[in-house]
């Protein structure tokens, strides 16, 4: 009889408790999912021509590439699973990830992003850095707060990561002004100083 019921019980036995069990449908999850294996720099490292492989044999470089490819698949799976958990449980979730030209999720993902913020410097960030946002079980609002008051830096001019193919903390930084303006414009629909009012509201 145990063998009959075990398949039905299995998801509940093997699943177990997780942090998602303490999150309600009245909450919001904001996930800045690690982009380390999706970024364009990482895509460049999936090539024998990558500069870090110059002094390696072809087999050594191939081993590095296969390891990176395996890690990328693992991270991809986790991102897909995270969205699935939120979608199935009715949890509101916003996932963020860079949206550079060769970003891995551009042509390979479970769902297209809700929108792309093409220029973060307009809302107070120090980088232009096109960024994609996926809204799961929730809708974005349409505010526009212009705060272009900082010198725009280039990602490529900032410190490199500690290891080849990894993004440095400096390149990952988000300005508090951008965070506030993003929250007001796209999550809360909250007017603040600097919000551009629309004639069509």
């Amino acid at each position, binding site marked *: 009889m145990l063998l009959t019921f075990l398949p039905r019980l299995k998801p*509940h036995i093997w699943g177990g408790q997780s942090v998602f069990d303490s999150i309600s449908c009245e909450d919001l999850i904001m996930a*800045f999912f690690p982009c380390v294996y999706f970024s364009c720099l990482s895509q460049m490292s999936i090539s024998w021509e990558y500069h870090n492989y110059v002094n390696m044999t072809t087999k050594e470089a191939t081993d590095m590439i296969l390891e990176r490819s395996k890690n990328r698949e693992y991270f991809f799976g986790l991102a897909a699973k995270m969205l699935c958990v939120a979608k199935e449980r009715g949890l509101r979730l916003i996932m963020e990830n860079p949206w550079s030209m060769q970003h891995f999720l551009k042509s390979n993902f479970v769902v297209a992003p809700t929108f792309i913020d093409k220029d973060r410097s307009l809302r107070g960030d120090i980088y232009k850095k096109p960024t994609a946002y996926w809204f799961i079980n929730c809708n974005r609002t349409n505010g526009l707060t212009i705060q272009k008051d900082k010198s725009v830096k280039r990602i490529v001019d900032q410190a490199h990561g500690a290891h080849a193919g990894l993004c440095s903390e400096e390149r990952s930084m*988000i*300005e508090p002004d951008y*965070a506030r303006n993003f929250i007001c414009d796209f999550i809360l629909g909250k007017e603040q100083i600097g919000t551009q009012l629309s004639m069509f509201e």
Partner: protein
Amino acid sequence: MEINGKVHCFFEQSGTFKNEFIKLGIPAEDYDIQNNFGQTDHVIDLFAEIETAYMGGAKCL
């Protein structure tokens, strides 16, 4: 959208958003496997949490 509950900020760099939500009067906490700045509310392996939740188990409140 209205947030009647709390905001849960996952992974690195989420602390900036956490702080801005709090300034806007919305309770927020952050979760990460690292605590480089000593401000992470929940030092937790989110990858393991995602895998556990995906496998099934208890559902949302």
